[in-house]
């Protein structure tokens, strides 16, 4: 059974279609990335999964339960970090964390104090005086302290400094080791690349690509840098070679991933001195997908 399951989910705000029938599944124990630019429908999808918004049609299931009708049961086993964290100005960060824990019937003080220490938060300050990053920490600690089965995180590192980002990533790895599932919406692609097993790319309310990072890479091109003793002839005529630059027996180009072995065979006859092959970064993938579809 999938932990999260979304089938043909549609949601409109008046005339604006925010979600145009999206589908994806998150399996137990995996870290799932959900990427897309602002306004693509990420937050709407998450809020529908949380049963905060009611879908127009389609299915959104968490733990096999309906996200709208069984919201309370679901909420007992999930932890959420919203995209924009606002807290009550006259309460301290510590009070807010306790309040959230209280609503979840949780009381693991040791774990809480550990996290507060890890994230270097001063819980005695009133929320009105917190910076964006500190409010984010309150929200992250509240989520991480809970013993949930899935953690739904909407842009969790926005406002965090690089050190705290590292702490966050470590915390996610720990959760993964414990077999927890994580749904991570983000547009910091290096983070998704580092943490996620599989991902979906959403654009204007539609999922345009889904799969593991390797799957997505297969659909795209690999960057090749090559140096040979002999000059290669006819490289530009080979099937699957693109964007070729030649500078005195130094070649850089991109190849279709399926044509990899043929091309390597071809160039090996020219006394290869140096060969670098690098898969595209998620950022490149993202750009390629975006450009292709628009």
């Amino acid at each position, binding site marked *: 059974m999938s932990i999260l399951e979304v089938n043909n989910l549609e949601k409109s705000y008046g005339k604006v279609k925010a979600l145009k029938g999206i589908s994806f599944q998150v399996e137990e124990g995996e870290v799932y990335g959900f990427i897309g630019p602002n306004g693509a429908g990420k937050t709407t999808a998450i809020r529908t999964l949380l049963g905060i918004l009611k879908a127009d049609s389609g299915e959104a299931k968490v733990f096999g339960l309906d996200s709208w009708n069984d*919201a309370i049961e679901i*909420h007992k086993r999930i932890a959420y970090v919203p995209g924009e964290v606002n807290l009550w100005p006259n309460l301290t960060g510590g009070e807010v964390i306790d309040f959230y824990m209280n*609503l979840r019937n949780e009381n693991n003080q040791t774990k809480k104090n550990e996290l507060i220490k890890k994230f270097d938060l001063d819980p005695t300050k009133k929320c009105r005086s917190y910076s964006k990053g500190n409010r984010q920490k309150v929200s992250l600690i509240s989520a991480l302290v809970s013993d949930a089965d899935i953690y739904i995180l909407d842009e969790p590192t926005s406002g965090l400094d690089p050190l705290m980002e590292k702490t966050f990533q470590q915390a996610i790895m720990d959760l993964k080791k414990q077999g927890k599932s994580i749904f991570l919406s983000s547009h910091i692609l290096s983070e998704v690349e580092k943490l996620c097993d599989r991902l979906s790319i959403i654009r204007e309310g539609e999922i345009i690509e889904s799969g593991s990072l390797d799957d997505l890479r297969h659909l795209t091109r690999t960057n090749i840098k090559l140096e040979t003793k002999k000059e290669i002839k006819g490289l530009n005529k080979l099937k699957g070679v693109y964007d070729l630059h030649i500078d005195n027996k130094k070649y850089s180009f991109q190849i279709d991933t399926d044509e990899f072995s043929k091309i390597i065979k071809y160039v090996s006859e020219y006394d290869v001195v140096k060969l670098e092959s690098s898969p595209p970064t998620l950022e490149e993938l993202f750009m390629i997908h975006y450009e292709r579809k628009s």
Partner: protein
Amino acid sequence: MKDLWFNNTIKLTVFFLRRDRIKIPIWIISISVFTVVIAAAITNLFGDLEELQAIGTMMENPAMVSMFGPAYGIENYHYGAAMTNMMLIMTAVITGVMGIMIVATHTRGDEEEGRLEMIRSLPVGRAATLAATFISMFLTFLLLSLIIGFGLFALNIESMDFNGSMLYGFGIGMTGFIFSAITAVFAQLTQNHRGTLAYPFAILGIGYVIRGIGDIGFEPLAWITPLKWISYTQAFVNNIWWPIFLTTFVGLLLFGLAFYLSSLRDLDAGFIAVKPGKEKASKYLNSPFALAIKISKTLIFGWLIAVFILGISYGSIFGDVEMFLESNDIYQQILPNIPGVSLTEQFLGVIIVVCAIASTIPGLLVILKLNSEEKKKRLEVILSTETPRYKIITHYLILAFLLTFISLLFTGIGLWLAIYSVMENPIALGTIIQGVLLFLPASLVMIGLATTLIGHLPKLANITWYYLIIAFFFVYLGNLLNLPEWIINLSVFAYIPQVPIESINYFTLTVLTLLSLSLISYGVYGYQKRDIQV
């Protein structure tokens, strides 16, 4: 099913009350202490029952009825009757304000700020926050009702019996409750915190004015506002309880409506649609002054219309006042006979003070907006440009000044238009406009006070509102309650002569103007020196 809608309501209720652990007690203590102190004072102020009877006669005058509500029990006017007559509606209005402000923050306020989203992701029922609001407000106002009821009864004043005291207390408390309910409905209908405040405030304010007109003219009209209902209880005189049940019942119905509406809508959505705005800025949007106008547009037009209507409303009662005074012998005796000044013109003075204080509000709103812009960190970017600080604050000050001036003018014109159409011998336009504009120096002192606070103690700038409310009460009730001169004189509005009864004292006006200029300059000076609020 119950879980899905109401899970964790109790914890949220506790949290609601905890968040307001200071705010709610302050409101309750202020309102109940205010009530009990005034009730205790009334016996001292009118020691003489004959004097009280004379006041009672004065309260029958349409001008007074429009402001305080009908005077019940005039045949045998005792302390209890006077208390209900003078204080019930005013205190109920303040309690309404309390209900509106608290509920708006906890409903749409939380939702707009995104705090509700987080709560909703927890094992919390869909309607649990609204249910917590309902329970908290019901308990709060029940407590307020009981404190006032027992407080009045404990004074052991002969004419204030247990039944009447409780009725008085519940009259005030349940007005707070019904306005909480109205606010809860608008929290569903509108899409932002501001609208959730604005509509109920409009209902409260317009209701007060319409009740005034209805009570002296067409009475059924007055019944559209709960303020009329609770004044009909006639506490301490006839002790009628059914309006309290009506108010509570309608309050419950409205909360029910709020629950229903909230079940229909999405988080962050409303029923009153928000129109898309302009794509490009107008070429006139090129200075802090233009920006101040732009962001205060609704406030400016709303208040100009409001003070104009206020003028018309109060002007419209002058026909009745004229008739009443001509036919009432006792009045002819009480009021001093000033040669050349008609009896109606003497009432003009009181009415003008109220209109003038109302006309001070929009200017204050504008200058205090500068402060809230800063608090919300929207000023940072503007300050990072080459625009100097003195220019920003001066532009807001110019707008505040112009707005105050125009508001006074508008309210004066409104007064005159109505007076002209209802009176046989209308008061001259010049007299009215002069009377209204004489308040400009006092209004400027208020703006000066706000500016000084913004310049030196920005966190306390909102104190200006409390001063305005207190000033209003001293002038409004001061003479009626025979407050000592020095207390009334704490209000800056008390220094303005009420023409045409009093003669113009140019020295006082000059002093006030100089005072306002110094306060403004001192404020502008401080504004350039201090740290920006972070």
